[in-house]
Structure formats: C-alpha cells, structure tokens
C-alpha cells in the first residue's frame, strides 16, 4: 500500500515538475537564456495566488488569472529590461546567468519580507485527502494536477506545431540568424517565449500552494529541478523535459521507500551528474556540449 501511495504522490509531483521544466526548457531551448529566475516566477505566482485567494478571498478563477498575469508580466519584463540589455553588448552566457541568479535572490527576499519566511498554505475544498482504500490517501488535487499537465501540454504542442508563432519559435531555437533573414525579429519572438514559458509555471505554482504549501525559498528547489529535468531530458526537447520532470518527481517519491527523505534531492543530482558526464545530450536532445 505504501508503494501505491508513493506512486500516486510521485505522479502528482511529477506532473507539476514536468510543467515547470517544460517552461524552463522552452526558454532555454529557443533563446539560450539560462533562466534560473524561473524558480522566482514560480514562487511569485504562488504567493500572488495565496494573497488573492486566501487573504483577499477572491474567487479562485480570478485569483488564478491574477497569478498568471503576475508571472507573465515578470517573465516578459525580465527578458525585456534585463536580458536584452545584457545581450546587446555581451553574448557570453555566464553574464546572463549571473543576472538571472541575482534576480532570483532579489525576488526570493522581497517575498520573504512581504510574507515572512515560514510556510504558507492555501486550504481549498479539493486539497483535503480522501481515503480511497484502507491506508491509501489521495487528494482530488492530484487528479487536477495530472489533468492540468495534460491540458497544458496539449495546448503547448498545438501551439508549437499548428500555428505560425509556434513555427517561428521552433525556428528561433534552430537558427536565430535565419529567422532574422526571413523578416522576423528574434527579440519580439523571445518576448513570446518568456510569456509562454512563465505561464507554464503558473498551474504548478497554484497546485503546489494548494497541496504542500509555499515558502519564499522554494524557488531554489524549483530551479534545481528545472535544470535537472531540462538537461536529463535533452536541451531543446520539450517531450524530454516533460518525461524527465515526471521521472524526477516519481524518483523523488518512490525512493522514499528505500532511503531517508534527506537523500532524495541528492539522488536527483547524482542522476543529473552522471547524465552530464556520460550523455550530455540527454534522452532526446542533440548532443550539444558547447
């Protein structure tokens, strides 16, 4: 029974990780920006939802819209006023990476000032666990998480394969120069990428708020998971990031059957480390090591 319980928890966590990693992977794969502030987007969306839904008692769709707007605005503004300023004079990835890291630190601490360092939870009617079988507790939120992930991936897939914007975004990942020759502006496209990528973190943020709660420092963990899933899955492959996110979530929960919880994060990173050493291209990716 413990195994089934951990399996279901794993699927729930994995579905959320898959969404978060997909956003990071989309941004990294198309614009080559190592957007570690993606974890900050996640935390921001979660806390805006908490403020609107729990504190101000708005209806949940409105609160969710508010969270989505906050994440989207943050992502687009960061791209526009930080990353693009840096890329204008400096192409080195590390400069952008450091700025992104700085942003993540600033957002985390601003949230800590606003909401305190402790855990905040968002109680909803769906987050209470029901006993399905004797000893097996499942919150309806788990089903919502899986559904959200499937819907979001369906939409994303449709957007990338059936619309002109999606075509342009995929082209941007392959060859930005050619996109410019074709008459499109990579900078404009990059804004769309950040918009979509940041929005992908929102459902995961809201569901995390409603299940395990939020704290300002959780952006770190989200960032680490996104990076791990993106690289293990293969840079430039959304499918890879999604599968890797799901697997990391499963591994994190299933490993609890054998080892102490303190080690589960380390297990994730041993896997990441081995992948970088022996198969930097990941499951599905091209073998890029530059």
């Amino acid at each position, binding site marked *: 029974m413990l195994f089934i319980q951990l399996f279901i928890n794993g699927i729930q966590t994995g579905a959320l990780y898959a969404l978060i990693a997909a956003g990071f992977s989309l941004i990294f794969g198309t614009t080559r920006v190592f957007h570690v502030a993606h974890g900050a987007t996640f935390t921001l969306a979660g806390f805006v939802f908490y403020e609107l839904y729990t504190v101000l008692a708005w209806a949940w769709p409105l609160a969710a819209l508010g969270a989505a707007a906050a994440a989207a605005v943050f992502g687009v503004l960061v791209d526009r006023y930080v990353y693009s300023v840096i890329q204008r004079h400096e192409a080195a990835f590390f400069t952008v990476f450091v700025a992104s890291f700085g942003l993540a630190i600033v957002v985390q601490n601003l949230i800590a000032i606003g909401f305190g360092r402790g855990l905040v939870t968002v109680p909803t009617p769906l987050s209470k666990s029901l006993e399905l079988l004797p000893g097996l507790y499942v919150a309806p939120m788990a089903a919502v998480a899986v559904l959200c992930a499937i819907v979001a991936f369906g939409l994303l897939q449709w957007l990338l394969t059936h619309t002109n914007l999606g075509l342009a975004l995929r082209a941007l990942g392959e060859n930005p120069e050619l996109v410019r020759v074709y008459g499109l502006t990579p900078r404009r496209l990059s804004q769309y990428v950040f918009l979509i990528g940041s929005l992908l973190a929102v459902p995961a943020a809201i569901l995390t708020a409603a299940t395990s709660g939020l704290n300002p420092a959780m952006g770190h963990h989200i960032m680490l998971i996104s990076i791990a899933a993106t690289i293990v899955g293969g840079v430039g492959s959304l499918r890879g990031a999604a599968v890797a996110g799901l697997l990391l979530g499963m591994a994190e929960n299933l490993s609890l059957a054998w080892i102490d919880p303190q080690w589960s994060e*380390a297990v994730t990173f041993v896997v990441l480390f081995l992948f970088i050493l022996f198969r930097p291209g990941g499951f599905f990716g091209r073998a890029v*090591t530059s």
Partner: protein
Amino acid sequence: MLAYLQNIAVLFCVNAMLAVTLNFIMGYAGIFSLAHAIFFGVGAYTAANIAMHFSDSLLLCVAGAVLVSGALSMVLALPALRVRGEYFVAASLGLQVIGVTVFSEWKSATGGLGGLVGIPPPTVFGHALATPGEFLGLAAGGLAAVLLITTALLRGSFGRSLMAIRDSESAAQAAGKWVAAVKTLSVAVSAGLAAVAGAIYAFYMSFVNVEGFMLETSILLMAMVIIGGTGTVFGPIIGAALLMLLPPALTYLPFLPPSELGTVQQIVYGSIMVLLMMFRPGGLVGGRRKRGKA
C-alpha cells in the same frame, strides 16, 4: 570594538582567500563553479577531524585539508573536461547539492546538522594559537600565501596555458598544450587552496556545521568575484571587502528592523549582481572590458 573589528578582519581574510581561489578557475580557466563552498567545507571538516582525533599541529591539519580537498576536486574536474558553459554550471550545482547532503548526513565525520563542536586551537611549533590577534595574523598570512601562490602560477607558463585554454580550447590543443592536465591541475590548486581557508575558518570558530557551506555561500563567493571583477588580481579581494562590509554597514541604517537585515543584505547584493551584469559586466575593477567567451 577592537574584538569586533578583528572578527570582521579574520572573516574578511577567509572570504577573500575563497574569492581569490574561485577567481583562479573562473577568471583564468573559464570554469564557472557553483560548488566552491563544498571545498571550503571539505577543508574545514578535514582540519577539524585531524585536530580532534590525531594532532593539533597547524601544518599537519592544513596539509591534510589541502590533500583531501585536492583529491576530491577531481570530481569537479571530470565534468570540466567534458562539458562547458551551462552544462558545467549545472554539474557543479549538482555537486553542491550532493555535497551539502553528505555534510549533513555523514554524522560520524561531520557531526550532522549539529556540526563539530570543540575543535582544539592549533599549535605552531608547540605554541597554541588562542588570541584573536594571533588568528588575525594567521588569516592574513594565509591570504598573502594564497595570493602569492596564485599570482606566481598565473605569471608563469602555467597561467598562460590556462588563459589560452579559456580563450580557445582547440587552439591551445593545436599549440601542443596538454589541455586535460592543465585544467585538472587548476581545479586541484583552487580546491586545495580553498581548503586552507576552510581549515583556518574551522580553527577560528572552533565549531563547524553545514550552514557555512551551503549553496548560498557558493553564490556569495561568486558574487564577490563578479562584483570585484573576474580575471583580475585585486577584483576578488575588493569584492570580498565590499560584501563583508555590507552587513555591518546596514546595521547603521536606523530605519531597518534588525530582523530583516539578512534579507535586505541579500536584496542589495542580488541587485548589485543584476545591475553590474547589465552595465559593467567586467566588475568594478575589470571596467567595461569584454570578458573571454564562456
């Protein structure tokens, strides 16, 4: 007041040593490591263990710390040889997380979350160092030694090979440089010297726990190097001085509640990192000069 200043000065020396050694691989070898705090930690734990169980001779403890840390640094050298850029940063992040888990779980060697308490004062030729003044001398001496060793290495042919590899690995290889050996050695030197800082820190505090060696420390060290100026001799020292003076300086601002000091400090250095990268990516010392390609 004097004790307070001495305390800041010792901690500044320790941090400056770490920043200088991190700059050694970041600025000159193009290896952007986010796992530097791990080698600091390895040095501190090794020195503490030797002092508590075998001998409190300073030389022995420091030598042991350097050897263990240098040997462990091979784990970081492996990905440095195979991948570059984002992949290496991710690998070093992974190493940082794994290292912290080991520090907090390997209870027999590190004391777990509680840490190691009661590290005896080190002895130099039979004389036990105990007063803050003596520790300041030790830390300043350590900083001078680290600076001397890294500058000497960089001035020589080793430094030129290192910078050649940073700027173009294939060109350096074509010119007959043994790329793998030079990179591995640079990582080992950096980790080994970081362990010296770890040993001094452990003896000065006479207590170590995992708190000092978390990802935050690695980021703070990276911020010191970047704010000061990557690939410059004095940049990391200036960066370390600025970031060490920031917390005491903030306490003088009357409108800040003391409970939020740490938070405000992090916001300030996060913003400095963002703004510097936008407008002055070479750091304060490096000026507007473009850095080598990462």
